[in-house]
């Protein structure tokens, strides 16, 4: 029971991280029809900046602000230098160019911070565990991450679903041409969403830094998961991103614990050792494939969500 609760919290926390990553990306995709493979780089750069700033200032808040600001600045810079010129091109050109950007950023951090990766410390005030109910202790830092991520997610959701600015953004996601015809400057809107998306990816990177290995290329696996989330949720759909982030986060985390157990009890150790790592890694891709077979536009397509 306590293990299940802990894993559920871990899953929620992965889901929150994925939501921070996918909300910005799905909107850029929906509004500008732009595929950005460099989104994982914002996550990575922010994690590096956070770890370094924390090391020199000792302030968790300052490191967070620095990380988010650096990701935002990087997002705007990338938009101005490269992305803006690619809006009218096809997906393929966008994939290739942003893949090139990813190569550049992965190598750049390797040159600046070294090849072996760096250590991001958990602030002393947030280290240790807290007993949630008798017999169940959970790391404080992870709870903080969950809380910050959830609050950000809720604020973001309210802004997008309840405010005028959010309405314009959603309109852009549903029907770009019509929104432009209504007098919205779709380029400025998109640059804003791109920058905000980068900042959110930065927040995710900052929060994740002490829990994962801060190293070159760390943004790539999370980018792939983010793309899975976006496709499951429906491209351009923020509600879809919420739902899919939580599904992917929880299913992936629980699968990693319970699939080896189930298989271990059903087969001999030799068979289960061979089977379970493959099955656990496959799980979310299987789910995505099944969802796409039955719902080719994702769970909550943008036009209705």
């Amino acid at each position, binding site marked *: 029971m306590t293990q299940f609760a802990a894993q559920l919290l871990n899953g929620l926390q992965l889901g929150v991280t994925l939501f921070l990553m996918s909300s910005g990306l799905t909107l850029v995709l929906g509004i500008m029809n732009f595929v950005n493979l460099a989104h994982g780089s914002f996550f990575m750069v922010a994690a590096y900046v956070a770890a370094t700033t924390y090391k020199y200032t000792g302030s968790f808040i300052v490191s967070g602000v620095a990380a988010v600001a650096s990701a935002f600045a990087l997002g705007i810079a990338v938009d101005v230098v490269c992305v803006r010129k*690619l809006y009218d091109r096809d997906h*393929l050109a966008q*994939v290739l160019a942003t893949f090139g950007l990813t*190569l550049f950023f992965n*190598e750049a951090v390797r040159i600046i911070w070294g090849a072996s990766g760096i250590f991001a410390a958990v602030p002393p005030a947030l280290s240790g565990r807290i007993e949630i109910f008798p017999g169940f202790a959970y790391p404080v830092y992870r709870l903080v991450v969950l809380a910050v991520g959830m609050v950000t997610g809720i604020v973001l959701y309210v802004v997008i679903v309840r405010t005028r600015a959010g309405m314009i953004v959603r309109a852009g996601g549903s029907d770009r041409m019509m929104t432009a015809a209504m007098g919205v400057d779709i380029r400025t809107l998109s640059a804003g969403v791109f920058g905000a998306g980068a900042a959110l990816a930065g927040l995710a990177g900052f929060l994740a830094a002490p829990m994962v290995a801060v190293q070159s290329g760390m943004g790539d696996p999370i980018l792939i998961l983010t*793309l*899975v989330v976006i496709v499951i949720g429906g491209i351009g759909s923020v509600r879809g991103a919420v739902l899919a982030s939580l599904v992917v986060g929880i299913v992936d985390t629980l699968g990693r614990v319970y699939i080896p157990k189930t298989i271990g009890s059903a087969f001999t150790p030799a068979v289960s050792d061979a089977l379970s790592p493959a099955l656990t890694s496959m799980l979310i*891709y299987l789910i*995505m494939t099944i969802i796409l077979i039955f719902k080719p536009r994702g769970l909550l397509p943008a036009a209705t969500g």
Partner: protein
Amino acid sequence: MSRNIAAVLVLIAFATVPLIAKVFDQPYYLTLFGRILIYGICALGVNLLLGSAGLVSFGHAMFLGIGAYAVGVTEYYGIESGFVQWPLGIAAAALAGLIVGAISVRLTGLYFIMITLAFGQLFYFVASGLAPFGGDDGMTIDTRSNFGHYLNLNNETLLYYFIFAILLLCLLFLHRLSHSRLGMIIAGIRSNESRMQALGFPTYRYKLIAFVLSAVICAISGLLLANLTDFVTAQYMTWQRSGEILVMAILGGMTSLFGPLIGTTALLLFEEVFSAYTEHWAIILGPVLVLIVLYLPQGLWGLLPDAKRPSR
């Protein structure tokens, strides 16, 4: 210099590689250019979907892997005959291509990219979980495909020309295909699928045919790769590999028959040359890719004038 002349010159250059390797006493050139030709075949296969049918597959490394494993697994069980391994690998890839394609080609755009990525990942995780065959660490192949006395692939020069001959066959096949009825229909689907449907073509079926054909070509490159490297690993099937193959095809120019081979050569030689000077070659490659996308939309091959449309 028109594209046709350039294409002939490039092929002649590839044909003389064994000679140059011999003269300069650099047997390594055979491996390097053999690898380039093999990935060139793979890029041609991917480009059959990409350039002809307009479908971006982010999972084609799985077919490369299926081909490579067809050699590795049969060899593991003591079957060394190429006449068994090759039909087996091609049949396995065709079957996998049929199943994956049947589900994938119903989707379009980013959804197609993602479902091929998902299938690629499924196959990758299966391969990396196959502990007897090495998984991610890989497995050495002791004996290359045995095609009898006259085609002994243990002779590096012969292996190189074998690869080269298969590349030429692929080029010939794709050239014929693009002028055939089937090729025209596939090209028609890329330009306007609804119109092709209105004309009465079952477009789904034709897209599926293109998918299976490209899977088979990629599997052939995998069969060759396993023979060249004497090694098979799940790492052949990662999504990064699928991405690299796409980059090769696009870099050279996916709208032409010859472009993917040029892109593959450029990318692999770039890696080879710059990695000799600096371990940070990727920091140059990244911006170069961006610049090519921004300023050379037709790819490297597009720099040369098309023979049919002479430049003024």
